[in-house]
């Protein structure tokens, strides 16, 4: 039997066992939506295509399964762009479908035509423009394969309207053989031996773990390696949750707003074991002062990451989980040494801290969220100070519980990502720790959350500032606060207007009660507007271009 392109698409999504599609209709995807109308597939209607991309991304980060989103041609497609770039920078598996004008109208500046294939070339792992319906099923199979294997990433499929209408025989192909795509999964045995030897010789080792540990599902192997060899572990922002932060070997996060002890440990270590991390400038600070005394082992699935930013002594290309399993067979048990004593001393001397002054401190709010949720929540964040406070003051113990735009730093990410996460993991508590600036970038998605009765919580750390930018202006631009003093709407009324629960908290003593009350709401989103001490800054801080062991203090 022959099916239309739209029906083929729907069939493929069923074959892929897609549980959630985030999308927004329009002219060029009318046929696809018509086919969805008959399908058991669950489609979630967002209020802006950027919300669809971020929701699919949040779903993917929370579940480990690929996120799927759909938008129409032209403006629908371009609205996806920020979401795709966000997913690309953080290596998140997405498959995005866009409608396109019919093939005979391509290249003529037709109504709602945008070259989304060209636009997304640099922000997707791969993309396709399907001009023949006969290719559609194969392309979709390849897209899911590419998005989810190797170094994951977003893949976009652009489908002209006539391709979704024309008919073809439907065969869902097997996993494709792509001659240009062969991710290496196992580490080279010689390099594994070298790494094991380097670990045995090291006197001051540190593990630096990134998002790759989470995407390859290697948290357990990481814990085994750290415990067996007694190696302290610091994670990147993306790596939060890859290693329990309440573990005695945890150093918390490193980098620009990392802990002092993590940055000191990296600066003093004689062996740095980078696992699924990419030496981002927010992590390394001044590159020639990063881990200056260390030999570096770099484990990554992407060969292009090896040697990109730093020289590497022992490169191991492979899937992090497999490589760690190989390595675990070769390493010897380690023991506590002076190094661990030194680190303990740093931890005691330089804890993350803040001072109470009668106003609501954002750090206090985050700590209270931690307590009220017993550390079990999925936390999404917006971008800015709120993001860093969430990272610093919530103790993450499990992978896929910290969901944040790391590489691109996309304001407006947290709310739609929370929607995706809540849909992917309906039983969990999902909190978006937000800023008053960021939340306004995708606030319309409250309507989506209300429509699907999602009990997500939005905690706005409201400083009436674009706080992180203000912090830089205060410290590096002589306090000249150019256009960072923002006044927001009445967020409580706004929440209520959308049909969500709105609360405002102005006193520290009411923080706990408000959070507990929010936890009782199960049938709709809750937004809590915490009016915080507006001048509060994020510390410690590595000034831009500085060495990571030279941190500014409050």
């Amino acid at each position: 039997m022959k099916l239309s392109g739209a029906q083929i698409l729907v069939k493929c999504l069923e074959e892929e066992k897609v549980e959630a599609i985030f999308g927004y209709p329009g002219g060029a995807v009318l046929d696809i939506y018509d086919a969805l109308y008959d399908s058991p597939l669950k489609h979630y209607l967002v209020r802006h295509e950027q919300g669809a991309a971020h929701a699919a991304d949040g779903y993917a980060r929370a579940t480990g399964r690929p996120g799927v989103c759909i938008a129409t041609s032209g403006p629908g497609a371009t609205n996806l762009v920020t979401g795709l770039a966000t997913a690309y920078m953080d290596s998140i598996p997405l498959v995005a479908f866009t409608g396109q004008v019919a093939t005979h109208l391509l290249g003529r500046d037709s109504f709602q035509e945008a070259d989304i294939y060209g636009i997304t070339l640099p922000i997707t792992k791969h993309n396709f423009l399907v001009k023949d319906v006969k290719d559609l099923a194969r392309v979709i199979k390849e897209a899911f394969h590419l998005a989810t294997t190797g170094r994951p990433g977003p893949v976009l499929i652009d489908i002209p309207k006539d391709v979704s209408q024309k008919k073809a025989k439907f065969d869902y192909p097997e996993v494709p053989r792509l001659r240009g795509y062969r991710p290496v999964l196992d580490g080279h045995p010689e390099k594994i031996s070298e790494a094991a030897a380097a670990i045995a010789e090291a006197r001051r080792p540190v593990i630096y773990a990134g998002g790759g540990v989470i995407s390859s599902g290697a948290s357990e192997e990481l814990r085994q390696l750290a415990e067996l060899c007694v190696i302290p572990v610091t994670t990147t922002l993306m790596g939060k949750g890859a290693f329990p932060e309440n573990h005695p070997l945890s150093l918390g996060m490193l980098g620009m707003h990392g802990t002092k002890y993590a940055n000191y440990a990296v600066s003093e270590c004689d062996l740095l074991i980078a696992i699924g991390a990419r030496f981002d400038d927010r992590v390394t600070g001044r590159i020639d002062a990063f881990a200056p005394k260390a030999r570096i082992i770099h484990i990554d699935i992407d060969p292009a990451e090896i040697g990109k930013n730093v020289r590497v002594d022992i490169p191991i290309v492979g899937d992090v989980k497999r490589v760690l399993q190989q390595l675990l067979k070769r390493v010897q048990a380690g023991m506590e040494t002076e190094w661990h004593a030194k680190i303990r001393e740093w931890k005691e001397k330089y804890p993350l801290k803040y001072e109470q002054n009668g106003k609501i401190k954002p750090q206090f709010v985050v700590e209270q969220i931690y307590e009220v949720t017993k550390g079990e929540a999925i936390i999404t964040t917006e971008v800015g100070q709120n993001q860093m406070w969430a990272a610093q003051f919530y103790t993450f113990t499990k992978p896929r519980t910290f969901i944040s735009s790391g590489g691109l730093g996309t304001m407006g990410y947290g709310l739609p990502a929370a929607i995706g996460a809540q849909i992917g993991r309906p039983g969990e508590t999902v909190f978006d720790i937000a800023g008053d600036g960021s939340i306004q970038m995708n606030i319309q998605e409250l309507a989506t959350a209300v429509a699907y009765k999602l009990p997500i919580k939005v905690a706005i750390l409201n400083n009436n500032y674009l706080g992180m930018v203000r912090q830089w202006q205060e410290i590096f631009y002589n306090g000249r606060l150019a256009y960072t003093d923002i006044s927001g709407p009445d967020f409580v009324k706004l929440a209520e207007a959308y049909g969500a629960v709105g609360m405002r908290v102005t006193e520290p003593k009411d923080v706990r009660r408000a959070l507990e009350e929010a936890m009782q709401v199960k049938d709709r989103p809750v937004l809590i507007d915490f009016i915080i001490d507006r001048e509060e800054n994020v510390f410690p801080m590595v000034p831009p271009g500085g060495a990571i062991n030279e941190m500014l203090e409050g």
Partner: protein
Amino acid sequence: MRHTLTVLVENNPGVLARVAGLFSRRGYNIDSLAVGRTENPTISRMTIVVEGDDKVIEQVSKQLNKLIDVIKVSDITAEEHVDRELVLIKVNADPSVRGEIMQIVEIFRARIVDIGRKTLTIEATGDEGKINAIIESLKPFRIRELVRTGKIAMLRGSRFTTVENGDEGKENNKDEY
């Protein structure tokens, strides 16, 4: 230093945009790029001449390899190879200087492929040095138009950069690591 990369790619629309975009986006300097179909109609070969130190070239190769449409990247700079460019030169040629020009053409074993009332069109092939030399020699007569291909290259002897049965694709530096 300049490196010559030969890159096998899927013969897909868009692949040139991917490769060109990669170079400009990441700030690599392309000296020349030539592309055409190979003996296998599903595969095109690009010969790319790129300027950079070893570290840059390593990144260029790895980033190229990362493209799904790229099947194989070989840096043949250090290996024995034949390389050629083709140039067409339209040069002013009054009857009084035609003899002289034809002598130059002969010396370089080039060819005259078209004659106008006041011009000659010359075709020359060779490595870069030879092409540069013939251009220099013709300059005094006033070159009116010049078109030059990028470099194409092939390994000498019975060694290949091709993939067997389209199946020996990227080993992704497996040997290295």
